[in-house]
């Protein structure tokens, strides 16, 4: 059993999806999905324990050793992200039943869970596999499932958002396919660790450069790096609330994992950062993302879209940390991956509560909500403070490491820009706080009740995690530093 953990991690949600179709009954499916997701979470915790105790786990699928068979390889980076994805997925599912009752018809609910589980299986597959082509396949499984999830939104604009995401996502995935094809052409292998061994021999050929460029652009489309982020705001704004929670907290993070894995483990740091102006490109795009998306966020009236733009800005911080190209910078990126998932998970879950009671996320609907829904709005405020980077929240920890990394490399003008970027977050969070706490409630409507407990509890689990990991940083920082050291260790 313990030996088969890497494959169980993927196969449990993958098999749970068709079983949901057989169960049909929405009530049953809801609990079944939750159990499957919690089971996946337990597996990921066990995997991390195994990795910490015995080092990298290697699992040959069907007993065929690499490079003939597909190999699953779990090291600390994989295990760290597996825990992140499965935990957020489980917490979001706690609230799913209540929230979806309002947002979907019962017939659609079962299909929602099927797509959700497939999306989860795809994301977990990307995280476990050690085979480049397998990454593409799982990427498409998760993407196709997320297009479906987004299209289930109540508003007809969700259809249009999903269609746009489908077009851009498919272009991105095809670019990745071209990149992988060219790598195979030059090396004759698809196994990531074989690739890492054989690529240096052919490093100076144009084909390898082209493969790298195609692959990077494709992945950056998937992770919504500015200016390739156009699909993201509408997709997050109009998807069902629970789908937004799950996708905002996990999908882009997994794409960043792919980026890290290929930059560090496959191509190697030397190739990625020395032969190409990747550093400059990533830093410039990261900064532009932070500013452009934060400024656009300030002008949004749809609060879900506001926080979606803020996600694009936060991705900018992660890419900036990566672009510094130092160990501390990578630690900042890894921390922000985890922390941003906690913040956005909490905020979007609280917004699910608002949708449940108020039915709208327009800023006007928030007038007076601070008094009527104190716990929900409290959660959004703590999440917002975390986005800004106030001490005692997780946002502070990752910003601290980012600024530290920038100062270490003597890039203090950029450190100042990062702080200015945080001020922009103050503005958009303040707009919401102002509406909720300082504006009188609308006269013509009866006061809204607090969000139902089944949404509040998961929201506050994440809010408390925001504060807990902001104070006790030993788990996140310790693990991030180990991962960063090992990724740079591979490179040298």
């Amino acid at each position, binding site marked *: 059993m313990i030996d088969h953990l890497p494959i169980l991690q993927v196969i449990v949600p993958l098999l749970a999806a068709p079983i949901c179709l057989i169960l049909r009954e929405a009530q049953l499916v809801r609990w079944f999905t939750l159990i499957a997701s919690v089971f996946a979470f337990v597996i990921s915790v066990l995997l991390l324990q195994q990795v910490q105790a015995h080092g990298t786990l290697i699992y040959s699928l069907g007993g065929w050793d690499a490079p003939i068979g597909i190999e699953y390889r779990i090291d600390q980076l994989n295990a760290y992200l597996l825990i992140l994805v499965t935990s957020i997925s489980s917490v979001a599912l706690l609230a799913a039943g209540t929230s979806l009752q309002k947002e979907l018809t019962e017939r659609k609910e079962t299909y929602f869970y099927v797509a959700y589980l497939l999306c989860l299986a795809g994301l977990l597959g990307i995280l476990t596999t050690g085979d480049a*082509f397998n990454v*593409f*396949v799982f990427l*498409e499984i998760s993407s*196709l499932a997320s*297009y*479906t999830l987004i*299209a289930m939104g109540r508003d*007809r*604009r969700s*259809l*249009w958002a*999903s*269609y746009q995401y*489908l*077009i851009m996502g*498919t*272009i991105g*995935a*095809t670019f990745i*396919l*071209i990149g992988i*094809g060219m790598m*195979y*052409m030059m090396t004759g292998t*698809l196994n990531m660790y074989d690739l890492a061994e054989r690529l240096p021999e052919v490093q100076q050929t144009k084909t390898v450069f082209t493969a790298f460029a195609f692959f990077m652009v494709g992945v950056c489309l998937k992770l919504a790096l500015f200016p390739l982020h156009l699909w993201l705001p509408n997709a997050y704004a109009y998807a069902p609330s629970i789908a937004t929670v799950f996708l905002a907290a996990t999908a882009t993070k997994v794409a960043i994992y792919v980026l890290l894995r290929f930059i560090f483990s496959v191509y190697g740091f030397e190739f990625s950062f020395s032969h190409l102006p990747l550093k400059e490109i990533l830093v410039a795009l990261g900064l532009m993302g932070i500013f452009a998306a934060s400024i656009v966020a300030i002008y949004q*009236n749809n609060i879900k879209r506001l926080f979606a733009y803020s996600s694009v800005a936060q991705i900018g911080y992660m890419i900036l940390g990566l672009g510094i190209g130092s160990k501390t910078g990578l630690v900042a990126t890894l921390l922000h991956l985890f922390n941003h998932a906690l913040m956005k998970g909490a905020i979007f879950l609280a917004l699910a509560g608002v949708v449940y009671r108020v039915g709208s996320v*327009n800023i006007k609907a928030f007038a007076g909500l601070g008094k009527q829904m104190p716990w929900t709005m409290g959660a959004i405020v703590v999440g917002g403070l975390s986005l800004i980077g106030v001490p005692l929240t997780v946002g502070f920890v990752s910003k601290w490491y980012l600024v530290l990394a920038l100062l270490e490399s003597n890039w203090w003008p950029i450190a100042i820009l990062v702080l200015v970027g945080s001020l922009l977050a103050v503005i958009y969070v303040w707009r919401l706080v102002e509406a909720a706490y300082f504006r009188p409630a609308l006269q013509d409507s009866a006061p809204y009740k607090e969000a139902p407990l089944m949404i509040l509890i998961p929201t506050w689990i994440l809010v408390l995690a925001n504060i807990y990991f902001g104070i006790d940083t030993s788990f996140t920082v310790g693990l991030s530093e180990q991962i960063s050291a090992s990724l740079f260790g591979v490179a040298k």
Partner: protein
Amino acid sequence: MNFLEQYNYWIVIVLMMSGFYIVIAHGNLIKKLIGLTVFQTSVFIMYISMSKVIGGTAPILNEAYKVYSNPLPHVLILTAIVVGVATTSLGLALAVRIKEAYGSVEEDVIQEKDLQQEGSQE
């Protein structure tokens, strides 16, 4: 090296760019999907042609056949074709639902209706 020697790659490039152009330039959702399919197909052709060995046969375990083409990319592309079919059908299903919801499959009409909807909510 002769300019036309590797004409298969030229076909790939032409197909890829025309597919990409259709996706960007056309406002009709169905035409966009056709462009997307052409774009994907060009990559399939790239995979298939790169593994072809001239004069090679299918990989048959027999003394008579010494030279054979690499079967692996062909298998990979079978997977990619399935993914492509799934993507296209999902895209078409979305187009049908967009037509039901908006009454049109033209990008500019949809965007105009969205703008009106947002304007009326302000």
